[in-house]
């Protein structure tokens, strides 16, 4: 055996944690660069610009409806925009695109085998790819959440907004929205990564989940709990009405919903780890 092969194998056996962390970092460097600057990033930027464009138009041409003229209603209005547009649409489809392409994109490009031919455990590969997706989505969507909230409040009621953020609950609400965004990336990310591994055409399961998340307000309390959006909505700082047809259910407390989401994510990632160990490279059949 060559000296280099011996060295790397010895290190794999004797210092597995540090080697694995280094491998995860190397995978993340490759993937984050691709996620931000690759051709596929264009769609995510387009999605992220959607609410900013909309809020920019509102900043220039404010609606004349009564609730838009009263600052006290703004937190509720933003909560609605965050829930419907940012969380359920932009973050959902953004995560779908980013995380499903981590594996599916490489299968389409016929380049996944290079990872499979490296001296890296496949579950370490999953972790590296997942964390790279998380970094990408959190940077993009947490940034989007902050910019959207500031763009929503400041143009129309500047002085009131300064007070709201510096002396009132504004800053706490902002960080809560950011935390929800991070949790959404964690939860949706794990789901879509697994979908990208298991399913050849991941658009269909993504649309099924999208539909399920949208009709969540109509579902009986028990079924509501089998969704990501139910737990995320429970954390929103300014609750909003889900309409006259909504089935009311007690929001899940944060001490259950946050660890619950993290546990489900961990289980999903374990499933991905098992799946990838048995995965074969057969581009021709994809």
């Amino acid at each position, binding site marked *: *055996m*060559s*000296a*280099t*092969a*011996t060295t*790397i*194998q010895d*290190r*794999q056996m004797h210092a597995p944690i540090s*080697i694995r962390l*280094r*491998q995860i970092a*190397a*995978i993340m*460097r*490759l993937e984050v*660069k*691709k996620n931000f*600057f*690759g*051709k596929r990033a264009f769609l995510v930027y387009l999605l992220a610009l959607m609410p900013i464009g909309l809020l920019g138009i509102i900043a220039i041409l404010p609606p004349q409806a009564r609730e838009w003229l009263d600052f006290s209603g703004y937190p509720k209005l933003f909560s609605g925009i965050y829930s419907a547009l940012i969380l359920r649409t932009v973050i959902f489809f953004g995560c779908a695109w980013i995380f499903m392409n981590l594996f599916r994109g*490489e299968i389409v*490009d*016929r*380049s996944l*085998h*290079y*990872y*499979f*031919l*490296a*001296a*890296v*455990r*496949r579950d*370490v590969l999953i972790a*590296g790819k997942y964390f790279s997706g998380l970094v990408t989505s959190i940077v993009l969507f947490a940034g989007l959440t902050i910019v959207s909230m500031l763009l929503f409040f400041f143009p129309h009621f500047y002085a009131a907004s300064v007070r709201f953020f510096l002396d009132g609950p504004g800053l706490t609400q902002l960080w809560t929205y950011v935390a929800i965004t991070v949790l959404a990336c964690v939860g949706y990310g794990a789901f879509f990564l697994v979908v990208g591994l298991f399913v050849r055409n991941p658009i269909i399961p993504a649309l099924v989940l999208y539909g399920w998340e949208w009709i969540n307000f109509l579902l009986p309390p028990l079924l509501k709990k089998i969704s990501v959006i139910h737990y995320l909505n429970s954390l929103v700082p300014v609750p909003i009405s889900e309409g006259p047809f909504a089935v009311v259910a007690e929001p899940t407390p944060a001490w259950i919903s946050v660890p619950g989401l993290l546990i489900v994510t961990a289980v999903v990632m374990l499933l991905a780890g098992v799946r990838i*160990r*048995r995965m*074969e*490279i*057969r*581009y021709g*059949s994809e």
Partner: protein
Amino acid sequence: MDEQDSNSQSEIRDPQSLILFDNVSKFYGEILGVNRVTLSLAPGITSLVGPNGAGKTTLMNLMTGLLRPTVGRVSVLGIPTDRPEQLFPKVGYCSQFDSFPRGLTGREFINAFLMVSGFSRKQSQDLTDEALARVDLMAAADRKIGAYSKGMRQRVRLAQSIAHHPCVLILDEPLNGLDPIVRAETIALFKDLAAQGLHLIVSSHILHEVDMMSDRVVLLNNGYVVAEGGIQGVRDEMEEHPMQILIRCNQPSLLAARVFRSDHVVEARLHNDRQGLFVKTRNADQFYLLLNEVVSQGEIELESVAPVDDDLSAVYEYLIGSH
């Protein structure tokens, strides 16, 4: 061929130094990839030879864990192929997939995957430079792979597979797309690596190349190993069996008259479009020398010279039929 010989050699070798296929079958749904393959490959250059669809790439993908056997077991130097962290410090695979991660230069590509394998930044840089120099690609190292020619892409893949100094190197049609000079250099590199005690597993459907570099051949057909053993047996049989070559030129009839005088040319037949000549020869090297002589006289202008695939299949059939 020396099947018995090779088996007895395998028995006395340490399994930790062998690549072992133990009754391996691989099916893609209902389609057969390889069937009941039992092999033990020792260090040196082993060529997997067979027509397209024979199962060469399937065997290579099984050796590297890109595929899992439907039945049976594969191990490389005693390591099961489903443990990449143990397998790939020792194994390099230059596959036939002509695709790369997007947007990377040759240097970034090799460096990135060395780091994924756990090498430090400094080690990766040094190994990358060494591998690029070895395949004579330093000048293009900082250009995007997307702008490389086919031959350069082949070389960067080769560099990536040897960068970490593996002791088993698996090469799927490694000479495809290389020009004659680089081809000769690459064959010399393979021989050099084999002389250092490496396992080289090379697939090819060009028997002439196999003949130039292999210690052993494994002959595959329709997913079955039909013969394995020393190269001498195949070489002898090839020399007895005529090889067909198509020569495209401006005066095929004149060429036919010239080459037919030679003893080793057994048949010369005009192509249907009358722009080419099929020649069957028992000695390809002698024929190429003769062709050079004819062309140097200036009466005939050559457009192309290529072995004919159909005939290659015929050679396989001939070899397969003889066992």
